[in-house]
């Protein structure tokens, strides 16, 4: 039993479990949230669930919803393969499972952050609306058909603790790859 436990790639196991937890948590808690005014408009973003709330109604954008499903299934596949790999890291097929699973959480985190940066840049360029990634700022909006009215909107944004779980999960998966050589070198039971 002791030998069996010694053979487990605990970084991989932790990474797999953290990835599964990340999926569940991200369904409820966004990684990043943008609030306009006093909750007049809220954008809740995570790779597995992105939605918007405005004037009392909550909605999502179909294309983003499809990308959320892609991310969810990718993370799920990654988490499952990481857990299977970590229990039997010395098998001949284990390296394939590891290679399949360990990079995906990191890529999802990177793509999410790059996507947010791109979205804020597009808003600034196209709509002249400065959206902060972290912190608060005010932005002035022009109102069509009401040239005598100027709206200055308080925009607050920030990353939540669920994003931290994702970063930790991705870190464990990378550590599992680095630790793989050590556990794979142990003699088979």
């Amino acid at each position, binding site marked *: 039993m002791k030998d069996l436990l010694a053979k487990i790639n605990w970084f991989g196991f932790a990474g797999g479990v953290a990835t599964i937890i990340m999926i569940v948590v991200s369904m409820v808690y966004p990684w990043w949230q943008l609030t*306009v*005014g*006093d909750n*007049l408009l809220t954008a809740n973003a995570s790779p597995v669930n992105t939605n918007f709330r*405005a*004037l*009392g*109604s909550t*909605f*999502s*954008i*179909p*294309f983003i*919803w*499809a*990308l959320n*499903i*892609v991310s969810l*299934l*990718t993370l799920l*596949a990654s988490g499952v*393969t990481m857990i299977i790999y970590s229990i039997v890291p010395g098998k*001949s*097929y284990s390296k*394939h*499972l590891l290679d*399949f699973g360990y990079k995906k959480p990191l890529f999802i985190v990177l793509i999410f952050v790059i996507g947010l940066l791109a979205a804020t840049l597009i808003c600034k360029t196209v709509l002249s609306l400065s959206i902060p990634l972290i912190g608060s700022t*005010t932005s002035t909006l022009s*109102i*069509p*058909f*009401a040239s*005598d*009215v*100027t*709206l*200055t*909107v*308080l925009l607050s944004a920030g990353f939540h603790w669920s994003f931290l779980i994702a970063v930790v999960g991705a870190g464990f998966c990378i550590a599992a790859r680095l630790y793989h050589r050590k556990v794979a070198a142990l003699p088979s039971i």
Partner: protein
Amino acid sequence: MDKITLILTLITIAIVVVPVVGVTLNYQDNLVGLFITPEINEIVDKFSSGVGGGDGSDGPEVQPIGPPEYDPISRTIKQVIQFENTFPFDITLKSMSGNVQCVEHGFDLGVASLENSISIPVGETKTVTLLITWTEDAISHFGTAHEGEETVEVVLANIGVDISGIQVQLDKNQMGQRMEIPNPAL
């Protein structure tokens, strides 16, 4: 082991392709709908009609009610005003500010502010109290430029309203209403 690699590759492709193609096929008759949902159009329509007043007027409706009360010790006038929520959502009127000017001379007399914040449901009208504090120069202006006049016509300019975290800055002409205030120098 090539089999495992192949299976994992196929899983990766399926995971990416199936949801994207599925949603695209679902919206093949209306590809714009992939990005712009009916809810977004509805919100844009509501904001357009709400900020514009929906009846051709601009911004929220603000009307003074009754004569103002003056406290000579604090040099402060209390003016009750009606505020109609023409926005398409419930609002909290957190603060209001503006400069009070003499209509006849364009002289800056003081600043106006809101006594308390108030919540106003969509479409409803509520009364709020506006406090106007005269400056020392304003008292002198009332005494010299309006000597003997019982009332002075003033207007609120550069009105700024904080509505649920959104600052609405109205043009001077937005007020539409001038106020007759008792001459504090009398």
